[in-house]
């Protein structure tokens, strides 16, 4: 290694929005563990917050895989939230609650309870930071204390799907509205080497319905924001940002948990591709 005076480089893993695709982070983790590379901090946004959290709370990769696979079932979007829907469509008759969540979040909260119930940031063995968006001023909010379940619930509050979530006195929404791949959080917390695992939103092959069109429009905006933020932080900071971009070969849809092994495998491959450079950077002198 380097001289005695050289301090160890701090490694951060940032997992961006991407629902089931975020499981690729478990593949990344498997490779790092195998190579004896420690992770010094974890940052998660939206679906990525689930994986950042299970990894930070100290379970091994296989347990994490099981816990998160059990989470992603159609049950979490099954119950409609009729009060919210009616308030949105007929605000003169039903009170509009200031936000819309078409899906009742009861099943989601139950699903999150198993891995995260009663767990706090302070219990995490690796420092953890979760990103959400303030509903009123649109600013990015980093949650890194208190209840992990609250933070994850806020970070994945996709507009119109689940209602926003209150933490303290702020109403929080999906982190990807403000920052789908929050590398700057890692930079601010003093990371030297950042493994950034981001997933671009998919584009449906044919746009043949209004919902597909809306989905396409939403994907374009999210992907543009992802690149815009990444480009800036890439240039502006001294830290080395190493993009780990798995190639899944095809569309991975919201509940494709049967594709978990494939997703994790691709996460491993993408990490292996960068491994040589990662090791050299960690060993290199700071000069």
């Amino acid at each position, binding site marked *: 290694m380097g001289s005695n005076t050289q301090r160890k480089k701090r490694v951060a893993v940032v997992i961006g929005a991407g629902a089931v695709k975020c499981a690729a982070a478990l593949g990344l983790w498997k490779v790092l563990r195998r190579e004896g590379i420690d992770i010094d901090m974890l940052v998660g946004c939206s679906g990525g917050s689930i994986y950042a959290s299970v990894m930070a709370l100290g379970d091994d990769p296989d347990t994490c895989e099981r816990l998160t696979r059990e989470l992603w079932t159609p049950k979490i979007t099954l119950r409609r939230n009729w009060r919210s829907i009616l308030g*949105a469509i007929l605000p003169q008759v039903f009170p509009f609650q200031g936000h819309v969540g078409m899906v009742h979040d009861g099943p989601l909260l139950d699903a999150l309870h198993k891995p995260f119930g009663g767990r706090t940031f302070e219990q995490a063995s690796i420092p953890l930071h979760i990103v959400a*968006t303030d509903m009123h001023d*649109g600013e*990015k909010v980093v949650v890194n204390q208190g209840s992990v379940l609250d933070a994850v619930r806020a970070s994945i509050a996709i507009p119109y799907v689940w209602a926003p979530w209150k933490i303290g006195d702020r109403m929080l929404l999906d982190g990807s509205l*403000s920052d789908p791949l929050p590398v700057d959080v890692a930079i601010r917390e003093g990371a030297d080497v950042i493994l950034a695992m981001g997933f671009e939103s998919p584009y449906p092959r044919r746009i043949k319905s209004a919902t597909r*069109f809306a989905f396409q429009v939403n994907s*374009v*905006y999210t992907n543009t924001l992802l690149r*815009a933020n990444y*480009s800036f932080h890439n240039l502006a900071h001294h830290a080395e940002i190493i993009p780990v971009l798995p190639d899944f070969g095809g569309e991975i849809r919201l509940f494709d948990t049967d594709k978990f092994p494939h997703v994790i495998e691709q996460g491993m491959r993408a990490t292996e591709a960068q491994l040589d450079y990662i090791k050299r950077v960690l060993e290199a002198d700071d000069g």
Partner: protein
Amino acid sequence: MADDGRRRPRVAVVVGSGGMKCAAAVGMWKVLEREGIPVDLAIGCSGGSIYTAAMAMGMDVHLAEQYTHRMWGGLFKRVRYGSLLRSLLPRKLGMFHARLGLVDDRAVGKVMQELYGDTRFEDCRIPLRLAATDLHTGEPVELKSGRIADGVRASIAIPMILPPWPVGGRLLVDGGMSDPLPVSIAIREGADIILAMGFETPPNAQLDSMFGVALQCLSTTVNHMLRSTYAFYSAAHHAELVPLMPDFGQPIRMTDTHLIPHIIQRGEEAMEAELPYVRRLLEADLQRSPA
């Protein structure tokens, strides 16, 4: 062109997306003309493309001002609610096709014809570039040939407001979806001094309806995009990027056409504020400029 001597800095003007707020570009344009500041490249995106196209064509700025009133006043008067409703209903009640929108496309077509006729990019006095987005790939598309009317129409094809517009075999939409203030084009073309007029959308205090919430989510994302791309372009550009971001003092909605004179005035003020610095930049010797 390895000049040993001084070369005049190349000036580019970029006007980004911002709906009716883009009329502030008329104010900026008035000042540029009055001060005799040469513009070597005009770049427009979404609402901004309307004005940079007019400027590049050599339209008289006062005529552009008149057209502004007629255009925004007329454009959104006839909103096609039937179209919107059909898009929200299940598929079996009406065929979906990507080409629908709230505003009457034929009315827009007429305005485009009035403003730009058959003028082509190649006919422009000032080289013109318009920014659109490929609907299927999300990639930014730079338009620099063909009819200007087609270019502007593609650039302002905001989803749900105007249908996407086909150009060169691709279905194009609002340039703001991939690059709301396309300073990138100016950088790629080697411009030295870039005057960039962009518009942020202030957070909506009134989240009193589903529509309000939707707009809020969208403007949150777009504001972040704007800030990040701007910061990136600042860091990536070799010379000077001058921001012209007028402060309107109040939220401006599509229907506030009575605020147009105010908008234009603010645009003038924003340009005036940067004028001394721009003059100094024009006179500076670029080769000795610091990084």
